[in-house]
């Protein structure tokens, strides 16, 4: 599982904002068909890392390698052209608009000529339905407004859209944080779907119970520094949780988590394995 070329390598990446070290010499990598989870509490530097990967910020030192070649991202558009798609928390979707209109927003297929050039609705609806089917969702009515979809379904539309527009590497910014337990499980399945279609996935979360079942690699961040970059074989869920929580609050947290841990190990893992 751990062999194969890295799709994206992050080497010694640092970012400063004035005198604040937001990220310090972060290293990790993601392979095609694998999920790398970036875990950290609030203020750990997760957002800064996403913004570097999606071209919003440029690192002060260190570099990114895509397919082994150095990659410089000057803008979000450059990241998209390199095949890196970021699904932000707000999903960049308009709730009142139909699914197919959202799917192609900003990149509408057209047909016709001159003043009669028009939005090719049939193609848009057909592709939307196909791409959603590939994600395992049967959208029989692409005319439904996105707002009527559940949070998890909306995530899947955003993911399907990124995949359709040529993403090779998918960055998911806390896709499960605003969701209920059931919906979070659904989104985890979509992550596995994307992985199985050969995409590299970077999954940002602060929840080790969401990360561990789907992740192949785990990067732990704390206050801008790496606490370690582990392959799944090198770390257990308990260890991951312990590292996330940090020393002082550990006792109390372990106590709180005792019961949920069982749930995740049983339900979460089984669910994901079934999906695979």
């Amino acid at each position, binding site marked *: 599982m751990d062999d194969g070329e890295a799709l994206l390598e992050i080497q010694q990446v640092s970012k400063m904002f004035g005198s604040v070290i937001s990220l310090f010499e972060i290293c990790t990598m993601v392979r095609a068909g694998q999920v790398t989870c970036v875990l950290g509490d609030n203020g750990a530097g997760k957002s800064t890392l996403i913004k570097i990967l999606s071209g919003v910020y440029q690192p002060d030192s260190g570099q990114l390698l895509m397919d082994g070649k150095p990659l410089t991202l000057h803008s979000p558009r450059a990241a998209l052209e390199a095949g890196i798609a970021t699904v932000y928390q707000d999903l960049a979707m*308009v709730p009142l*608009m139909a699914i197919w209109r959202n799917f192609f*927003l900003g990149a*509408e297929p057209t047909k016709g000529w001159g003043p009669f050039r028009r939005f090719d609705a049939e193609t848009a609806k057909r592709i939307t339905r196909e791409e959603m089917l590939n994600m395992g969702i*049967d959208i029989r009515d692409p005319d439904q407004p996105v707002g009527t979809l559940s949070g998890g379904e909306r995530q899947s539309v955003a993911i399907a859209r990124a995949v359709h527009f040529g993403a090779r590497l998918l960055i998911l910014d806390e896709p499960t944080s605003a969701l209920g337990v059931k919906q979070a499980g659904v989104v985890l399945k979509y992550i596995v779907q994307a992985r199985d279609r050969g995409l590299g996935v970077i999954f940002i979360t602060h929840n080790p119970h969401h990360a561990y079942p789907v992740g192949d690699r785990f990067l732990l961040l704390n206050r801008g520094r790496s606490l370690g970059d582990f392959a799944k074989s090198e770390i257990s869920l308990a260890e991951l949780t312990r590292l996330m929580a940090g020393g002082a609050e550990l006792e109390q947290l372990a106590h709180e988590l005792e019961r949920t841990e069982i749930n995740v190990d049983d339900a979460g893992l089984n669910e*994901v394995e079934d999906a695979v």
Partner: protein
Amino acid sequence: MAATTTTAAADERVARVGLFKRLVVKPELGSLIGAIVIFAFFSVLSDVFHSANGIANWLDPASTLGIMAVTVALLMIGGHFDLSAGVQTGTAGIATGLLTTYYGMNTFAALVLSLVLVLAIGFINGYLVVRTKLPSFIITLGMFLMLQGLNLGVTKLVTNTVQVNNFDQVGGYKVLHSILASTVTIAGAPFQIAIAWWIVFTIVGSWVLLKTRFGNWIFAVGGDQNSANNVGVPVGRTTIILFMITSFGAWFVGNAQIVRLTSIQAQTGFGQELIYIVAAVIGGCLLTGGFGSAIGASLGALIFGMTSQGIVYAGWDADWFKFFLGAMLLLAVLSNQYVRRFAEQTRR
């Protein structure tokens, strides 16, 4: 287990969206029902109302209003208001009138110049809204007041009166009259040509909105500006063009008016801006943007026309008209609110 959950969830959702809910999200449905009810209501009260003459009579005010309602609806779906839309009709007509009758300019050159003038006003409206990110309400209120003063001031300065007269003396008036103000006799009743233009505006507006990329951008910009921006929709350009489309409508309506009446008052269009918004809202446009239809706005204008004339035919005091209009506006706003809640409800 997982696979079955997915299919089950999907089926559940598809089944949930019944015919009623699918119709409810069609923005023009409410106004269509309203138009039918009002037509039936006044038809019962008055035989003239549904005669050819009667129809020609109430289609007339509906047509000029309808042209503006369509352009204003596009702007509202894009998330903005234009309170200066009414006075811009005056500005356009006065500009054409003064340039021809007082400065002897070629009529068609004057028309082009007046178009350039109002498009510039629309551009300034849009540009200020985009750059300052202030509510369009306040920006166009400023523009409204400025133009109101300018229309009156300039007209008085040039003509020493508050109107521009003698437009029928200008070159090419006959051509203009046949294009913008002639009547077509159908079933013995004179129908204004503006009705045909109204239909053209409605079809083009609806086509742009539903069938083009730009239309998709209008919905997106009005629905969620941030999201639209994130996926690469040119938000600023779309907004500015929408304001210019409204100005184009004002140019058309203002000039149609000076051609038809052969004169134009400096006060032309004052207060109309709210009627345009009323028509668009009755037609299903949300005040918050992102939802609505051009056909709906036209139906809103139709309702306005039918009610204003219907009350006269029914032999009632015309004062009741405003009451009816207000009641319909309230009803429309309430049902729009319901539609929006349905469309935006989330299941988490």
